[in-house]
């Protein structure tokens, strides 16, 4: 599908020219710069991985997008991470090496199969990638996924650059099969989204391992699970021994006045600051952690410092071993680390710099010009609705000037929460409260909340913002779009029929570019004395197949400078010298602003020949 004409790829909100699709497919064994996520995908490919199922989530998305470029791998977007992990488990059970990828909060969704597939173990190797987002570049929390490895008793590898992401992905399958366990590879934003040098090899084709019926191993009912638990404890003991002397952990002796135990991207910052001026224990396997290796390292240095982002996982392990270490007493639990932060906290020199000493205007992310969500949020704001929101581009509805969202928790929570909100307040909230959720998020975990509304009957109004794509993560297909990850035609779930089948009698479809229609329908559905679903349907303006209208123009003599159009927060409209100005390079001619102008100042543009 990656023809010459399709090299204009869309990536996370903007176009750029790319040959990446072609590069990936060329089986050249040449040193190249590779994104951490792409390197991980290359490792999967070479290890003979046959099935990949994931749900997109920054910063993990590209692993699966890159894997999908290999014809040898069956690859799909699942509706959510739990489904993805269970699909990968099924493939492993059947005897084919499998993979699922997700962001940190996605692992919460998949935690249920995670904890129990630790008990069953695997047939063919099964690898799970979880990508954390310290610094919350694109996430709602900053949780540390390493806790999951410890609590689910599943080995976890933590690469520190693309080369390791590639090598660890290959090794993870071997580890998985050798120890009969799923293996987690933990990425972070800086490893996932940095490019460093990788020298790819060839794919190792693998025959499927035979599937054998084994009720005691794979049917996790109490009697069998009781039998499996000691197996898992024994496996962890063996893995701990393995960690003492494995290829993932290494000691780099330097100056012995300071010994630093570190992993992931923190290792790179430590090397940047100290080079040979410190001894380093670099841990690539973060669960289980070694004991003797750490004690031996500690005995060779004068003091031990632990450098790890987020929670003190390594630090607590060291303290449990009886070591006196420095860690979170100096370094923060919050946010990302960097070379300067580590240098400053550990008393090393930090470069000086010049400062303008002036508060510059910020440049926050905004809804794109022509974004279909804008019109809908304008109406919700105008009607002073209480809006319970969800996860996606439309979370930007919370930003000024629209400021039309009051709650965002996690995937699907808008629908479940409005049910609780309305059960708590009844008629006081029912007529003015709405839940808004995107099409992909609805398929992910909105459906179950909607089933609760249908079943337990709260008088709730749910708005599905159907922009026909998973937008925020950079345009991935989902079960409502009719296309699969490769862009080929696929099953398409019809939202209207789905809602009706659940028992909703009131299901309305509106076009968010038509403000009057939106306002009328939202008003009617809020007034109705029964639950209802409104589908606000218009494809994302950045989709390639969406045809843009000519940019609007301003008829200056009509413009009174009243700034009505500015209430939309459209990046294509500004006021210069008291008059509205349209940026013709941004405007896609959606004409939503035109509907707010009382003076006929905003005119449809001429279509150029």
């Amino acid at each position, binding site marked *: 599908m990656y023809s010459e004409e399709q090299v204009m790829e869309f*990536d996370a*909100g903007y176009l750029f020219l790319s040959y990446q699709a072609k590069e990936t497919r060329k089986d050249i064994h040449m040193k190249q*710069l590779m994104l951490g996520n792409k390197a991980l995908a290359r490792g999967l490919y070479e290890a003979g991985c046959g099935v990949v199922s994931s749900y997109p989530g920054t910063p993990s998305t590209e692993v699966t997008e890159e894997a999908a470029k290999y014809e040898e791998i069956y690859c799909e977007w699942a509706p959510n991470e739990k489904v993805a992990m269970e699909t990968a488990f099924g493939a492993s059970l059947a005897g084919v090496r499998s993979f699922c990828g997700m962001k940190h909060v996605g692992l919460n969704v998949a935690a249920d199969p995670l904890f129990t597939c630790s008990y069953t173990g695997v047939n063919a190797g099964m690898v799970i990638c979880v990508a954390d987002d310290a610094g919350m570049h*694109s996430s709602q929390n900053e949780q540390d996924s390493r806790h999951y490895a410890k609590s689910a008793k599943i080995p976890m590898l933590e690469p520190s*650059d693309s080369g390791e992401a590639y090598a660890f992905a290959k090794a993870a399958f071997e580890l998985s099969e050798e120890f009969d366990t799923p293996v987690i590879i933990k990425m972070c934003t800086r490893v996932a989204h940095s490019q460093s040098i990788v020298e790819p090899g060839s794919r190792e084709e693998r025959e499927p391992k035979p599937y054998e019926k084994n009720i005691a191993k794979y049917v996790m009912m109490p009697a069998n699970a009781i039998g499996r638990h000691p197996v898992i404890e024994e496996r962890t003991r063996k893995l701990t021994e393995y960690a003492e002397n494995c290829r993932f952990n290494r000691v780099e002796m330097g100056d012995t006045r300071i010994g630093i135990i570190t992993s992931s991207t923190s290792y790179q910052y430590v090397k940047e600051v100290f080079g040979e001026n410190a001894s380093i224990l670099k841990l690539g396997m973060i669960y289980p952690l070694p004991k003797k290796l750490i004690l031996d390292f500690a005995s060779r240095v004068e003091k031990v410092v632990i450098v790890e982002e987020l929670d003190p996982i390594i630090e607590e392990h060291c303290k449990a071993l009886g070591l006196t270490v420095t860690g979170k007493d100096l370094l923060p639990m919050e946010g990302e680390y960097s070379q300067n932060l580590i240098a400053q906290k550990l008393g090393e020199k930090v470069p000086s*710099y010049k400062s303008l000493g002036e508060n510059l205007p910020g440049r926050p992310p905004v809804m794109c010009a022509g974004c279909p969500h804008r019109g809908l949020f304008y109406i919700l704001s105008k009607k002073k609705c209480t809006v319970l929101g969800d996860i996606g581009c439309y979370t*930007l509805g919370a930003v000024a000037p629209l400021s039309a969202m009051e709650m965002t928790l996690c995937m699907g929570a808008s629908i479940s929460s409005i049910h609780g909100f309305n059960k708590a307040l009844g008629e006081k909230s029912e007529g003015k409260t709405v839940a808004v959720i995107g099409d992909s998020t609805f398929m992910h975990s909105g459906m179950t909340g909607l089933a609760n509304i249908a079943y337990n009957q709260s008088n709730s109004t749910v708005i599905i913002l159907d922009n026909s794509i998973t937008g925020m993560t950079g345009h991935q297909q989902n079960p409502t779009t009719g296309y699969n990850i490769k862009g080929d035609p696929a099953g398409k779930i019809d939202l209207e029929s789905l809602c009706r089948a659940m028992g909703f009698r009131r299901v309305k479809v509106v076009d968010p570019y038509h403000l009057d229609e939106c306002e009328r329908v939202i008003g009617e559905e809020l007034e109705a004395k029964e639950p209802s679903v409104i589908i606000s349907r218009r494809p994302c303006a950045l989709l390639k197949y969406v045809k843009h209208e000519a940019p609007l123009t301003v008829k200056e003599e009509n413009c009174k400078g009243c700034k009505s159009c500015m209430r939309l927060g459209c990046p294509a409209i*500004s006021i210069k010298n008291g008059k509205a100005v349209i940026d013709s390079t941004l405007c896609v001619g959606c004409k939503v602003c035109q509907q707010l102008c009382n003076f006929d100042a905003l005119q449809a543009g001429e279509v150029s020949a």
Partner: protein
Amino acid sequence: MTKNIMIVGVGGQGSLLASKLIGHLLLSEGFDVKVSEVHGMSQRGGSVVTYVRYGEQVYSPIIDKGEADFIVSFEKLEAARYVEYLKEGGRIVVNTQEIDPMPVITGAVSYPKDLISKMENLGITVDAIDCLSLAEEAGSAKAVNLVLMGRLSNYFDIPVERWEKAIEECVPPKFVEMNKKAFLSGRGK
């Protein structure tokens, strides 16, 4: 010694191709290279930053305050925003284009004035260039990135043919000529 190039701009301006081009070139020149960017929220018209680091062996994927040898900015305000990342003696190469951020669009604040002279008053060397006009002359407003790369290329001891070869290898064939033209107009010789 690791060298640092920070590429900053506004989501949608084409900084990914710029970092891809320069990363590809430096790799073929035999350097260890790391390129780091953040995807996600920052790209909805927000401020975007890409780090390019090269040398014998590069560790950290990011550039910290006081470390950048070059700040290559697609937009004036963004150059000013990241000025603290510039190393003592470093250089700013900036497209003089102004793109209003939302607080300016809504009229909450105005676009700051005299940013270039303010930076120069700090003793910083600023190479300012109107990339948009040159890109449009070359055939597309989208070639701003190549104009800027052309300007940056003047400060590297790498023959122009090798930059051109990198363009051929990073850009789809039908856009190569236009991009080369934009590159050379930015290079100015």
